């Protein structure tokens, strides 16, 4: 069996919907802007890849009433799931689908704290039964439950919480379920948001964001790179067996031909500098795909724009692809939409589909002067026209969780 993608839904700094996402990538635009969803005037970082707030009337009333919908990732995940489900033409026959979803980088769902900062709680007044209050109602699988409820999915739901590798691992898990014949069809993907006071504040204290407050702050593979920009959003996919998809007349967007994961086993707070474990993840994906390194035409890199990650990833690419590493095109979309954390791998797989949809390889926004330590063929800010048959997408999470997925052009 071969797992294929037949549905796609996206929410990002480029707006709601896959067409908006592909359109912006094709134009080489950047979605980074000043944070508008809360007052961050005194924060060290004040820019992000902020996605549009999902209106309350598009969310389940019960979750709005309970305050759970305050968590932005809930809306992003739901809207992306609806789009993916509809675009794949799924209906009653697909309700037994499993759901594999990656959600949330953090255990504490930071949005729960929003009432402290947005004026809905008044500390100088006595609490009443009707007054807003902080409600800790965001279990890790809240969005998964909401998606299952709305789309009436009856299959098992699996929540992947592997930090920044989670979205890629969720799609790989879905492909494995389909390929092994464990299930016919899976809705999978990821949603995340850290664009809130505690998320942004915590990341600032950790020192991960670029200290620049400029719209081009994140510069993957650039000599002047100095950190990431936070993003938010979701990407969801319908993954099913190719024969099933053909049988029901579904349009195939890509084949999922290989995947692999490893751990650095090095340090909790830094990637293994030689990139050897990241290399092993790519090699496992190639082995599973039964492809030689030369078959890869494009790599969508994890490419965070941090000083340590980018050169380690380039070393890994060279180790995995050998001499072909000098010829393969590499880009990162994190400069354009920010780092979506748990959802980054999913949305970067979505971006990789541009190679098959339009014969365009996404550009690397704000990349100008390639760091000699990043000795790969980095695509500049403009997308590059090319026809490739296989693309590889990397995600390397906090604590050294590495994941790679290879997509193939539809047959």
């Amino acid at each position, binding site marked *: 069996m071969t797992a294929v993608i037949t549905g796609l839904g996206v929410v990002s700094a480029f707006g709601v919907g896959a067409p908006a996402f592909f359109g912006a990538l094709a134009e080489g635009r950047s979605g980074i802007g000043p944070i508008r969803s809360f007052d961050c005037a005194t*924060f060290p970082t004040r820019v992000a890849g902020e996605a549009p707030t999902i209106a309350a009337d598009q969310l389940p009333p019960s979750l709005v009433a309970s305050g759970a919908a305050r968590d932005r990732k809930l809306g992003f995940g739901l809207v992306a799931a609806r789009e993916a489900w509809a675009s794949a033409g799924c209906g009653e026959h697909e309700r037994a689908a499993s759901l594999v979803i990656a959600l949330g980088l953090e255990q504490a769902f930071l949005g729960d*704290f929003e009432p402290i900062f947005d004026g809905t709680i008044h500390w100088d007044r006595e609490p009443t039964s009707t007054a807003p209050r902080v409600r800790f109602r965001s279990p890790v699988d809240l969005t998964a439950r909401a998606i299952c409820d709305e789309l009436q999915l009856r299959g098992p739901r699996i929540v992947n919480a592997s930090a920044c590798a989670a979205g890629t691992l969720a799609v790989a898990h879905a492909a494995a379920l389909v390929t092994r014949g464990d299930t016919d069809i899976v809705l999978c993907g990821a949603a995340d948001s850290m664009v809130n006071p505690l998320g942004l504040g915590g990341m600032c*204290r950790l020192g991960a964001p670029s200290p620049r407050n400029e719209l081009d702050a994140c510069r993957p593979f650039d000599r002047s790179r100095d950190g990431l920009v936070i993003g938010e959003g979701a990407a969801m996919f319908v993954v099913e067996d190719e024969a099933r998809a053909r049988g029901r007349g579904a349009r195939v967007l890509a084949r999922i031909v290989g995947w692999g994961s490893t751990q650095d086993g090095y340090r909790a707070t830094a990637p293994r500098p030689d990139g050897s474990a990241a290399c092993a993840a790519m090699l496992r994906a190639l082995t599973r795909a039964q492809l030689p390194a030369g078959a890869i035409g494009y790599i969508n890199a994890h490419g965070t724009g941090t000083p340590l990650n980018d050169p380690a990833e380039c070393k890994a690419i060279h180790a995995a692809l050998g001499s072909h590493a000098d010829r393969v095109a590499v880009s990162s979309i994190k400069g354009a939409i920010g780092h979506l954390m748990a959802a980054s791998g999913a949305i970067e797989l979505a971006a990789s589909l541009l190679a098959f949809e339009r014969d365009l390889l996404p550009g690397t926004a704000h990349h100008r002067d390639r760091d000699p330590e990043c000795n790969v063929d980095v695509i500049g800010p403009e997308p590059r026209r090319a026809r490739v048959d296989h693309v590889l997408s990397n995600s390397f999470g906090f604590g050294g969780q590495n994941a790679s997925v290879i997509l193939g052009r539809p047959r």
Partner: protein
Amino acid sequence: MTAMTAAIVATSWRTPLGNTRDDVSRRMRAGERAAITNPFASSYALQHVAPIRSAPAASRNDRFLRRMGLYGMEVAHEAFAAAAIPASARYGFFTAVGGLRAHWDDMLGALANQHDSGEDAWERGLKHVHPYWMLRHLSNNVHALASAELGLRGEGATFGGATAGAHAINAAIRALHDGAIDAALVVAYDSLLEPETLVELGERMAADFIPGEAAAAIVLVRAASPAAGALGHVELTVPSAEHDHAPTAPITELMGHLGAATAVVQAIVTTQEQR
């Protein structure tokens, strides 16, 4: 779904009924129940709880981990050592964490002086958040620390939610059967006793619901492996979509609801029964 099994070659756990196989086995055979009266019964709807009785050992990892994470590290180290299988790039690692809620107690200093409007939130306290605060709340922090300390470099993933333990076991079994790895450490931990969780469970669960907590680890190898001096076997399961705190295992009656740790604790109990 294809029937698949793996051999369990090492175990470790922290449970409401004890921390060693013999202790727990003896208490289970005696039908002993772990539930005690909730020490804060006047504040919560749920009147009984089943806590782990011992505190985690002091650790330099308390910079990054809270109580349950520290238990997770302890059982990871113990099971890994008991298995005596050298760390390598073919040693997988799969972890499961519960649907943990927001934790507020380590944020009080940052929140105490906030203004209603959210104005100057950074200056009013967030700038004092510890740099590691974010890391302490990451869902994969045990995965990150244990893989580094033990040198595990094979396939792996972290799963979340009430059935996470079953999915972690499933992923390990599949990776073993695929030949991607030769051994897998599976670690699960969860607590339903944290204040936020108790409040929520008290609002939606029956009064006789007993929240518990546990950390458990098993090392798996292929069932046919010559290294399998097996304590028992575990097989692939299909967790139901309707799973939230359902009484999914007989151990629930004895230990309370263990959330994400249920499947791994159950696997260890099964090894005792298989012996």
